Structures are given as C-alpha cells and as structure tokens.
C-alpha cells in the first residue's frame, strides 16, 4: 500500500466520521463579518466632518452619480471618435488598395507582349527570322566511364634538358603570348 492510497483512505474515513458526528452536533452559528466599503466609509467620514444633513447626503450621492455619468459619456465619446477615425482609415486603405491595383495593372500591361512589341517597334528593333540552324552531332563522351590514371609525360629526355637550360638562361616565357 503506497502513501497516496493511505491518504485517500484516511480522508474518506475522516469524512465519514464527520458526517456521522455532524448529525448529532448542532451546527455552529456562522459569524458573518460585516465589512464596510470604501465609499461608505469615505461618505460617512465626510458627512461626519462636514456635518451634512440627509439632504446633503442626497446631493453628495447625486453628484457622484453625475460624475459617473459624465465620465461614461466622455468615454463613449472618445470611443465613438476612435471609431470614426478607424472608419476613415479603412476608407483610406481602400483608396490606397484601389491605387495599388491600378498601378499593378499598369505594371502588368508594361510587360504584356503587345506593349513589348510596340516599344520594340518604336525603338526600331525587329525580330529577325534565323536563316538556318547548325545541326550538331551527338558528342561521344561517356560520362559514366572511370576516370583512369593520369597520362605520363612523353617529352623526350633531351628536349626536357634543352628546355631546362633555356629556362634557366632566358627565364620562362608565356607560351600563348609567344605563339601570337
């Protein structure tokens, strides 16, 4: 038996005990704690200090209500104003989108084949029909073939020796430049 089960079983038992015992015992009277609200405290304090009569109380209450109403009206007016601003901005957005659509159409039209041809014609360009095509032969390269060993240098030894001497004496020269 683990701890959780122990606890559960204990709790059930305790509840049972309580329910049995509770039936015999008279319920204890609940003590209600009376708390006074801030407004009540403040108004009573103010009334005590100002020595207000019952009419004074009424006026004070009415004033508070009036302030609340004015606050509400101010808030509502602010919301309504914001609402108008949003509506105006939405309208502005619609206008801008309309302009954007118009610009997009202009852009698309600029790239339209008709427009391109017209512009080309105005610039003096014209499409030339090719006079012929060169028929090629399939290139015989097997791309899948293994690479193989690097070819060795087949230059004769005497030529290599001559080249070494010339290079040493006259310095190396650019072969491509020399051929020109």
């Amino acid at each position: 038996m683990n701890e959780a089960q122990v606890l559960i079983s204990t709790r059930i038992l305790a509840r049972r005990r309580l329910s049995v015992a509770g039936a015999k015992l008279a319920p204890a009277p609940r003590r209600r704690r009376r708390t006074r609200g801030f407004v009540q405290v403040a108004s009573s304090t103010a009334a005590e200090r100002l020595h207000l009569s019952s009419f004074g109380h009424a006026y004070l209450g009415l004033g508070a209500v009036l302030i609340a109403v004015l606050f509400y009206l101010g808030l509502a007016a602010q919301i309504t104003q914001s609402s108008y601003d949003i509506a105006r901005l939405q309208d502005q957005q619609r206008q801008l989108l309309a302009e954007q659509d118009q610009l997009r159409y202009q852009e698309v039209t600029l790239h339209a084949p008709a427009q391109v041809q017209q512009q080309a014609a105005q610039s003096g360009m014209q499409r030339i029909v090719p006079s012929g095509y060169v028929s090629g032969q399939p290139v015989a390269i097997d791309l899948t073939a293994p690479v193989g060993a690097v070819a060795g240098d087949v230059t004769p030894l005497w030529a290599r020796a001559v080249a070494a001497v010339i290079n040493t004496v006259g310095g190396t020269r650019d072969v491509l430049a020399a051929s020109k």
Partner: protein
Amino acid sequence: MERVGSTRLRVLSMVLVALCLAGLVWSRLAYWQVARHGQLGMQAQAQYREVVDLPAIRGAIFDRNLTQLVVNTTVYSAFVSPDQVPAAWRQRVTSALVSVLGADQTTVTTILASPAKFAYISPRRFAKDKADRLTALKLPGVGLEPETQRSYLPGTSSATTLASNLLGFVNYNGDGQYGLEAYYQKALAGTPGYISSYRDLANREIVLGSHTHQDPVNGSDLVLSLDANIQYAAEQALADGVKKYNAESGSVLIMDPTTGGIIASADYPSYNANDFAHTDTALFKDNVSSYVYEPGSVMKVATLAGAINSGAITPGTVINDPGYLNVGGYRIYDWDRKNHGNITYTYVLQDSLNVGAMKAMQAEGHDAFYSYLQGFGLTKPSGIDVAGETTVPPPPAASMADAQYATASFGQGIDVNMVQMLAAVNVIANGGKYAPPHVVDRVGTAINPLLLQPQRQVISPSAAAQMTTMMENVVQHGSGFTSRVKGFELDQTGKTGTSQIPVNGQYTQDVWASFVGFLPAQHPKFTMLVVVRKPHAAGSGSDWTLNDGYITAGPIWQKIAQAMVVDWHITPDPR
C-alpha cells in the same frame, strides 16, 4: 343620503371613463409594443444597423511563366438621388457629370427632373482619377460606388484583349461568362463575407460598436499552361492570315505534346474583354472548343495510324488508286480525280488521297475503325476545362452506313471541334498516348488532377513512330511544303486538310482549311492546329482549290511555329 349616492355614482362613472380612456391608451400601447414589436424592431434596426457585404477578391490568372493575364482593378460608378439635388443645383450637377464622365446631357437632365430616388449615371465603371475629380466637386445628391473590375491584357489591336475567347470575362454581377472565367467561376470567385455594424445619424459607421462579421474567403489563383508570348504571336499571325486570305474567321490551337496543356488558343475575329458591354455577343464564342467542323484530310492521320496499329497496313503497303472508289452506291473521288495507279500509303498521306484512306479503313474493318475513333477521342467531348465545349458525336457504330464510314475515313461527314482533333493528332506526337487537353495546370496550390493520371495508350509507340515518318514526308515531299520552318525542313511533321462546308445537306464551294503538325518530329515541343473558315484567297473565284489548307492554313502555321522556335530556343534534332 341621496347626495352621497349620486356623488358615488359620479365618482364611479368618472373612474369608469378614466379606465376606458386608460384602456384605450394601454391597448394602443400594447398594439404597438406587442403586436407590432417585430416589425418596428426591424425598422429601427434598419435605421441604425447595417449589413455590409465584404466581397471576396477574385483569383488572378497567370500563364506558365507566371505572367499575370488578369488583374482586379477598382472602378467607380456614379449615382444620383434626384430628390436630394436642390433645383438650384441641377444645372451645375448636370454640367459636372457631363464634363467629368462624358454622360449624355439630356439623359442626366431627365433623371434629375424625375421623382426617382436613385439612378446610375452612364457610362459606369470609370477610373479613379474621374472619381477623384467628381468627389472634389462635392455635388449634392451625387454618390460614388466602388466596384471591382477584371482588367485584361491588351491584344494585337485596341479592339481585342489577349486570349479573350479563352479567358472569357466577368459581368457586372461578378459572374464569369464564357471560357475559363465561367468554367472556374466557383474557384475564382471565392466566398463573400459580411459585416453587420451600427451607423450614427450621419450614416457614419461605428466600428467599435457591437457587430458581427464573417471574413470573406478569397478566390484561388489559376496557373495556366498558356504562354502569353506564344499566344500573342498566334493571334498576330492568325489575324494577318485571315485578313490576307479574306476568310470569315480562323482559329489556332497549340498543345504541349507530353502533358496536353494548351500553350495558345487564338480566335479571329476576337473582342475586347475590358469592354464586353459594347461587344457583339457573337464574338464571345470560343470557336476552338465551341465550333464543330469537318476536319477533312487531317483525319487521315488518325485513320492510317489506326490501320497501321491494327496491322492492316504498313506505310509501304502498295494499293491501286484509280482516282475513285464506289462505296454504298456512291462514287467517291480523290481531290484531283486522277488515276494514281499503284501507290504506297506513305504516298497516300503525302498526296492526301481519299481512295487510300477509304481502302485503309476497309482493310482494318468498320469495327476497328470505329474503336480507333473512340480511342483517339473523336466520339465524345474532350473534357477541356473551358465553358461551352460543343461536340456532335458520330452515330453508333451499328447505325453508320458504308458511305458514312468511307467519308469519315478522310474527315467528311464527321464533326469534331478543334480540341478533339488536335488531341487526336497529338497521340502521334506523344508516342501513341492520349494526353487529356487542359488549360489550367494549377488551381491555387492544387495541381490539376488530369496531370497526375496515367495517359491512355491508343496506339503502339512503333505505330506512332511510323506515322511520324509519314507526316514528315508530307512536309518534305507533299502538300505540307508551305509550313516548312527554316532549319526544320527535315525535322517537322504536318498534314493539310480541306473540307467543303455543307449548307442544308449540300456541300458548297466554301471550305474549312486546316493544317496540323508538330515539331521537332522526333522530340516534339508543340503540336499545332490551324483552321481557317471560308477563305477566299486571291484567284479562288476561278480556282477554288486556291483556298486549300496548304495555301491558307499552312503559312499561318509556319509563321507561328517560326516564332515558337525563336522564343522557346527549339533546335532540330541532330542527324
């Protein structure tokens, strides 16, 4: 005691009267508050509550290179409330509407003098600059209503827009009409939303008030297999050709051989989709898919290909062609009525001989011929995704007479639309497989399911290859010489077609002239069909064969193919 009684009576009667009066008032209040509650509540709501539609943005249409073919633009319509225009302002309002919008002065004057509450001012749907000018004038009783309009790309002339017959247009109610706009209306249109909000006394919207709203679902974009540049080249060449040969009309259809995607679809005459309201409705029809014609000798490609595939003939099989054949009590002639003696089927196609086509059909038999017609898709609609495809299927195989089979073998007495015919010839270009023709590759992000389906094998690749060689021969040695593209003379295929147009059961001298072919022959990049209706070429009054497909349709095919070769960088296959 008596006085007391009378006083009581008086009080009682006064109370009764008061009760009656109060009862009257209460009953009236009850009538308004209970019996009429629903109606009055609705009236009150109508005054301060407004439901505004939130339109869905219609999907755009792009070509294969993602060039936008259609753009949504905002235009404006002006309206007046004549009862809101003071008499002193009428003249000024009239002159403003006339000068800014170009409205008819008499019409505007009549509207303003009428007791109407609302009237649109014609012309409607003008651009924002005019709307701004009108707004700046602050005319009483004049309002502007923004509307969305589809704007299409310019075509070969100011009277046309690009691919107008294929795309269709969208009417003032936002409904697609004709072509793709109609076929894909649901996908393009999306689902509109709404917003229900409060309005103040000045009819200004109170956005932050309690309101309900449903967001719109915008329409899906379409990506087509179309190429805008090729489309333009096709329209231009077609317009030039139809004018040159003084024809009634013409059409061009170009297809991707491997996928069946339409690369270009042109009609002439065409129309300006941006100004559909002032267009003759007869021009709206797409003659590519909604017009049936007798294909003539182009049909011989399907006839001979079927016969080769069934093993009934080979390209080298020799037959005797005396220039005519008697079938079902009719004598049917070759186009030249000459005795050609012993010839091969390659020569039959090259010289477009009807007798050869009939003999090929007879060699394979009626049933096989009919089943190949079905296989090539010539007995049912092609299913292309544009609105209004029209077909006239042939009668059932059993009820076709011998003469009907005979004429059908060379493309007379059988009706097809251009899509059906091109898809059939495309079987040859596609190694014997039927590629379902379609215009749209993608709807939104979804690929057209047609592209994912396996293609139907109609004839063997070997039969297709043999037919390709025969069609190459047509260009090199036969009637297809007018279609030769520089550099591709040995690497292109073609077949001419000329069929007389029947009127009231009688064939007339007017013809449908056509040319079909693909290029390069061994690895085709496109298949193209050109049809010219009722051409009247120079000199055809005395010699009507001058209207034949090789003279009228062939050069148009050549011009478009030349443009495609350059634009798509197509090179001939190495030899």
